[in-house]
């Protein structure tokens, strides 16, 4: 295949073969597919974190009263978990789109093969898919922030910054998720993703401070992405912004780069080799 390539494509100019600057086309297809499939299912995703917030914030919160955040601030329990739920929903949305959905497209509907036979490069496809996941994540986030505002859980004006933070988190998970998914071959392997997600969801300072754990476990949790996401958003909604915010942002930037590079390479190896 490479031997007959026309000049100006392929090996000679790898950038062009990777990226045609047309991720928009992939996004447009995705939107169209969403619209024709089931809008109600997509919209319903908004309710899940709201249910959690009502249940735990109101019900469990009554048993708890206030909780100390990592910066020592005492906040009502609902205000403690709300930012965490926001981060979790950003993660879940991004992971769902970039793992299960993408896995299906990769292995069953062969959508990507079809896309890559056009002028689109693997990077267009990867970016397009990630943007699509982000769009969905942003939609949920805005809805959830409105609920938080109504319930008085946004404790500071900096809560506005939670929105871009959510996108950053979603971007990180979507790109890494897509990269990992491109290595998966069977549904059984996909189960392992959920298996890693569950403890991360429960242990990452989402529902209680990580200080209950011995130090080595705390380090482990702090090495995982969700903890950074939760702390980042919590800093925004409680207004306790410190230098740590930069560390969290940095973590996600690295994650995004790693994810995008991984995905692009992998798509190229899979379909353009």
């Amino acid at each position, binding site marked *: 295949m490479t031997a007959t390539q026309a000049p100006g494509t392929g090996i000679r100019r790898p950038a062009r073969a990777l990226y045609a600057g047309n991720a928009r086309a992939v996004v447009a297809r995705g939107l169209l597919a969403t619209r024709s499939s089931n809008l109600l299912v997509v919209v319903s995703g908004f309710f899940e974190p709201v249910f959690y917030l009502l249940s735990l914030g109101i*019900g469990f919160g009554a048993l708890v009263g206030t909780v100390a955040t990592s910066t020592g601030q005492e906040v009502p329990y609902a205000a403690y978990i709300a930012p965490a739920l926001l981060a979790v929903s950003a993660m879940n949305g991004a992971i769902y789109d970039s793992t299960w959905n993408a896995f299906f497209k990769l292995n069953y509907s062969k959508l990507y093969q079809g896309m890559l036979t056009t002028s689109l490069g693997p990077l267009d496809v990867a970016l397009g898919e990630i943007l699509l996941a982000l769009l969905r994540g942003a939609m949920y986030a805005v809805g959830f922030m409105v609920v938080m505002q109504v319930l008085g859980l946004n404790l500071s004006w900096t809560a506005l910054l939670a929105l871009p933070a959510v996108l950053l988190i979603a971007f990180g998970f979507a790109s890494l998720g897509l990269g990992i998914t491109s290595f998966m071959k069977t549904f059984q392997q996909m189960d392992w993703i959920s298996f890693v997600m569950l403890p991360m969801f429960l242990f990452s300072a989402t529902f209680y401070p990580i200080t209950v754990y011995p130090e080595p476990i705390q380090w482990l949790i702090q090495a995982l992405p969700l903890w950074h996401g939760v702390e980042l958003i919590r800093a925004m909604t409680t207004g306790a912004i410190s230098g740590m915010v930069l560390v969290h942002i940095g973590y996600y930037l690295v994650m995004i780069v790693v994810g995008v590079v991984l995905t692009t390479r992998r798509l190229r190896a899979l379909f353009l080799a």
Partner: protein
Amino acid sequence: MTALDPTSSGAPSDLSAGALSEDARRALAGGAAPRRFGAWYVAEHRIRAMRGYLQSAIVTSIGNPLVYLFALGIGLASLVPQGVGEVSYLVFVAPALLATAAVTVAADETTYPMLAGFKWNPVFFGMNASPVTGTQISAGIMIAITVRLLATVAIYFAVMLLFGAVPLATGVLAIPVAVATGLAVGGLIGAYASRIEDDRGQLPMLMRFGVTPMFLFSGTFFPLETLPPWLQWIGWISPLWHGSELGRVVSYGYDEPAWLTAVHVVYLAVLIVVGLRLVATAFTRRLNK
């Protein structure tokens, strides 16, 4: 199932009034065993199919209780040092987590597998072409689910013991209670899923607006009374609440009026019976096109 006596009801009304043909006799003999044991054959088949995901089922059945009890019984419990009622938060939450695990497995087994058996991989039609009837197929599936529930719940319970979450010896009764809770939910979901003709995302909606709220508002993580009255009705109709409360009674002697305990038992029993019948009629109807 109609009673079958080849020498009386069936034979004379059939075509020729004379003696049964050799073929007919062979058929009546061939139908005898399946009429009695058909449901067990189906259960055997389903359990064999479950081996396909045995590995991930085992890992989840051991991993989930570890993760949940560690997170809720230790982590979340740190926020409730005073405990709930007269017991620690761990002891309070464990029976509810057990019932929740059963409900999760039951929902897993009765959503897509039920729909798939009619639609994407229509094995139920294949089974029905054999002597096995629709009622037997549905019963066999529910037997197989019960087996999986028992295994999952027993492992969960063992982990609970490991965490010291079960003060009373009667706590072992939490196992049948949880299985019953799973079956109550599974029957209803199965009856719904097996009626779906076109997949328009009804199942994710059911999970989102049925199963998840049930799990969150059934007094699992906190006593139902903590919720505002306008949310408490969810618990009253939720099999998970009845199952969790019953589990608490046997596990740590949760003090509730005896009549309420009786209500839990009766409610779960009624749901199971109704659910199983609904699944059976759904199967019979759908198979007889």
